[in-house]
């Protein structure tokens, strides 16, 4: 009795999203394929980049929706709260401590896993106490997050100044978002981490629904609030580390995705929200990258446009008074 029309609407939305995603992938893979021997080479290259786009999309979408539920706020993203600048700071410290050769000689896998572990630990310590208390004081939560973010960025910049120019170039390469330097060696480990984190997130979708009611109600309904907060933060840390490692920090992308997801679904269940966020993000990335690579001939950066559009959307949300 409850949800039949709602369920039907949701099924339609998911069918539509799936179809658009399929079309985007098909165009991405097949448009303007060269003849002959180059074909399989181009296909391989495109598949690799497609995997990168999908991973970045899914992780960013899922991470932002989860983070907003945790924070009880629809404008915060892990990036605004300084999660990705924490990642950049880690890279800078590693380069400064080990030098370029040392940095480059750490096996990709172990470096990535180490980064992720440190991110989880620091994320839980820094943001756990802040968000765990119920974040009744949203203004203070945002302010603290923004200040932490700026502090991480300035620390990275400070260490960058002390570095020699070659080392600094290595750091810089990892601090701007671009699919141009997608690190293909990271794809397998990124895919495994993403699958594990998204799987865990989906398995606790019901608990996330309750978490979204705010601390008091979640505790009253018997949710083990502290534990769920820390698991969620840990998952968000993993899901932010993956795209930041793959392409670099993209600040506003997650905000657009989460806003669109809530706007389109109009349903509070995370079992629906999380997959939809992943699909919407993937569609946007693939379509955006198609336009830039194939139509505009690489004349710009995807991240620049995403940030531009994201900034406009942010303003729109502010002016519409959707921010609570």
């Amino acid at each position, binding site marked *: 009795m409850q949800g039949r029309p709602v369920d039907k609407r949701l099924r339609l939305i998911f069918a539509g999203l799936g179809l658009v995603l399929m079309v985007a992938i098909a165009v991405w893979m097949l448009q303007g394929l060269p003849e002959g021997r180059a074909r399989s080479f181009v296909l391989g290259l495109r598949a690799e980049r497609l995997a990168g786009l999908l991973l970045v999309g899914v992780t960013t979408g899922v991470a932002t929706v989860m983070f907003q*539920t945790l924070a009880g706020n629809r404008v915060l993203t892990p990036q605004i709260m300084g999660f990705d600048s924490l990642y950049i700071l880690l890279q800078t410290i590693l380069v400064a401590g080990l030098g370029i050769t040392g940095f480059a000689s750490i096996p990709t896998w172990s470096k990535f896993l180490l980064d992720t572990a440190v991110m989880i630990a620091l994320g839980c310590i820094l943001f756990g106490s802040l968000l765990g208390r119920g974040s009744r004081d949203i203004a203070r939560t945002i302010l603290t997050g923004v200040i932490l973010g700026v502090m991480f960025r300035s620390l990275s910049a400070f260490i960058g100044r002390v570095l020699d120019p070659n080392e600094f170039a290595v750091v810089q390469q990892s601090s701007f978002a671009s699919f141009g330097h997608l690190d293909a060696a990271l794809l397998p480990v990124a895919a495994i981490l993403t699958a594990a984190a998204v799987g865990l997130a989906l398995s606790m979708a019901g608990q996330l629904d*309750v978490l979204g*009611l*705010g601390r008091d109600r979640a505790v*009253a*309904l*018997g949710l083990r609030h502290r534990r769920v907060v820390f698991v969620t933060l840990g998952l968000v840390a993993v899901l932010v580390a993956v795209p930041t490692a793959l392409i670099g920090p993209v600040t506003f992308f997650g905000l657009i995705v989460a806003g669109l997801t809530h706007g389109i679904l*109009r349903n*509070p269940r995370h079992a629906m929200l999380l997959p939809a966020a992943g699909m919407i993000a993937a569609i946007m990335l693939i379509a955006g990258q198609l336009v830039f690579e194939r139509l505009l001939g690489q004349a710009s950066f995807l991240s620049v446009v995403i940030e531009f559009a994201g900034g406009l959307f942010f303003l729109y949300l502010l002016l519409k008074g959707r921010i609570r």
Partner: protein
Amino acid sequence: MIRIEDVSHSIGPARILHDIRTGFPKGRLTALIGPNGAGKSTLVRLVGRLENLQSGRISVDGHDLALTQTLELARVMAILGQDTAIASRLRVRELVAFGRWPHHNGRPRADDHARVETALENFALTQLADRFLDEISGGQAQRAHIAMCFAQDTPWLLLDEPLNNLDMSHSRALMQRVSDLVRRQGRSVVMVVHEINYAAAWADHIIAMKDGRIMAEGDPDTVLNQRTLSELYDADVQVSRHQDRPLVLHHA
């Protein structure tokens, strides 16, 4: 029976509760009264484990709060706090349905849906069930939150100022519903009330608090007298009687 033993509580340097030792009787409607800042809400939130216990011991029907799984407690008591702002954009029915969560953990059965519909009906929310919470008035939203607690269907119900935002007729309807639960179904209700005549008219047991201490407790006829109330509120209060219940006149 809810037992509260030697409970003290501080927020920063401010001592909110001083060695509280009392009990809420089972199968009764207990009202907590007292001036602002007396510590009523803090006490109710401590019992409802919304605040962490700093010292002392609280047990609900023999379940020690410190030793019992929070999910198990959610099947013994429901608590309504004062903060009713929710970030998620929910429909009224979706909010009320969350009250069943401790019983089904995400997989509602037919019985759960039926109880949600009953709770909606009881609070005259059926018409509003498909509206979003931010599209209804504060009083209607308050009723939706109370309905969620009712849907939780627990032996104990703790309500922190449930009459906030409610008009006279809905306040009376809520008090009737609550006293119905107590008298017909043998459940136990504890509520913080500011409008003292609601306590006078409906409560079986009254606990008067001031400055973090219990000043008086007992049945309405013992607690609601001129001397106690005047001292409690530091204001001259007259007490009369109406239909064999105390009637407090505070329009000096």
